């Protein structure tokens, strides 16, 4: 359904994304992991249309959307959340979500109804009349999700929705993501919380220095020496294996 082919993006002398390719099939939850600065968020921005790639193409449901601006991609069904949450601080929670709902429902009452339904799915129904600036970090993450969901997307790009949450909040939100997928929304998520990646993702891609260095089932990928070295430095995989042998 989503097909990212050989995408690169250069910022001056920095090659932030370097020939990355990935595919996401309908109904999947796919993870995108990698060390800080690997280019994950940049790749998300390219897929959602906020940054144009220097090279490569993005196809969505068979159509080339590489040149389409962000708002048109949202209309096609690509929704994203932001790593640094971006609430409309001066608006109420209801009005925040309604902006998303207005995309498919031009009439006010329809949009409000859909916004309130999205709020219920994320457990925000008691906060509807509060300004978004009153929400806690966890609340803002939920708002970010609810707003994206209100656009009724086909694929949802989640950029570290679990970052900054405490363990119990993480436990609360993992099932929500699964329910969203079961409701027919394909999910591509950037995540550092491995507990979530392991329990949610069917496949993961590992990005390092802008390149996809590994792909596959989470358990295999985590054992991949290339991946361990990308996180822990050159030679780390060998030392860990040596440690295991010595320990045994």
């Amino acid at each position, binding site marked *: 359904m989503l097909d990212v082919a050989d995408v690169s993006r250069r910022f001056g002398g920095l090659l932030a994304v370097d020939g990355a390719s990935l595919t996401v099939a309908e109904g999947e939850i796919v993870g995108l992991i990698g060390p800080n600065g690997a280019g994950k968020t940049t790749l998300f921005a390219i897929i*959602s249309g*906020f940054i144009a790639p220097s090279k490569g193409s993005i196809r969505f449901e068979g159509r080339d959307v590489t040149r389409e*601006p*962000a*708002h048109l991609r*949202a*209309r096609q069904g690509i*929704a*994203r959340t*932001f790593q640094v949450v*971006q*609430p*409309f*601080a*001066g*608006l109420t929670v209801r*009005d925040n979500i*309604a*902006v*998303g709902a*207005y*995309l498919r429902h*031009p*009439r*006010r009452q329809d*949009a409000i109804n859909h916004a309130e339904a999205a709020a219920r799915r994320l457990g925000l129904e008691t906060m509807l009349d509060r300004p978004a600036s009153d929400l806690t970090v966890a609340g803002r993450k939920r708002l970010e999700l609810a*707003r*994206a969901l*209100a*656009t009724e997307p086909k694929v949802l790009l989640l950029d570290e929705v679990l970052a900054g949450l405490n363990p119990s909040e993480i436990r609360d939100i993992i099932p929500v993501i699964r329910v969203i997928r079961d409701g027919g929304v394909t999910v591509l998520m950037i995540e550092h919380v491995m507990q979530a990646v392991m329990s949610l993702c069917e496949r993961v891609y590992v990005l390092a220095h802008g390149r996809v260095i590994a792909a596959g089932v989470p358990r295999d990928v985590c054992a991949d020496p290339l991946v361990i070295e990308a996180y822990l430095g050159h030679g780390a995989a060998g030392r860990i294996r040596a440690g295991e042998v010595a320990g045994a």
Partner: protein
Amino acid sequence: MTGRDLLPPALLIGLLALVPWATSSNTMLNFLVTVLIVALAAQGWNLLGGFGGQFSFGHAAFFGTGAYATALLQIRGGVNAWIACLIGIAAGGVVGWVIGVLAFRARLRGSYFALVTLAFAEVLRILTNAADFTGGAAGLLLRLDVRPMNFQFASRAVFYWIALVCVAVVLLLTVMIERGRFGAQLAAVRENEEAARALGVDALAVKLRAITLSAAITAAAGCLYTQYFLYLDANIAYGSWISIEALLAAIVGGIGTVAGPVIGALTLHGLGELTKGFAGDITGVDLVLFGLLLVAAIGFAPLGIVGSLRRLRVVRLSGGAR
């Protein structure tokens, strides 16, 4: 749209509509017509600045275009006054759209946008002041021919009511925008343009729509000015006074609120006249007061008069519940 949204503005308009029966004083009606013209200009500013968050410092560009188009079409083209006004409003909208395309495509925001709008207004002022076609520095004088056909009335009250209808129509339009999709998207763009785009909002199109509508409303104020005073020159039509009064009335009255600009214009000019009465002949004493009010509004009541009243009511309601 519920009755609750419409009640306060309807009450305000109803009260103002009764004034000509309460007084026949020309000074009073003159004062109120001026207030309504400023209120209309401020309503235009508020749509773009208050609801859209794009602070213009050059709404004179639209006011002046409306005023000059109305006058020139009649004097040079022999067009009927009413039709000239309609064309003037459209011309203001076009100027707004053009400035919007240039400024928003270049991604200008905040002070940069404000400065560019100011520059456009100043360029138009200097050009109209120099060109013979627009009457140069001597300005334009419309022929006095008091007939309703010519948008000229023997009674000031009639003109006052027409201006009031314009303000009422824009109040209604503002309520409709605030309660609809366009208003939600405009607020989203004001609060966070990136997030709005991620939710499928075409930020550029929304801002262009807002500036075009805003400009047309302020241009309507310019048309009314021409028809009421039957005289204008570049410093009146394109002068920075109207840019300042438009934003001042909206900010003091309540930025981003439906009735704010009208209440702001009434308050500012009411207090202005009062101080002139007290202070006598000191030139510009009302402007000193305007400055103080702006400082007070930004410092103590950033939501203006309407916003502060609303907050008071919320506090009292929640206090009573306890």
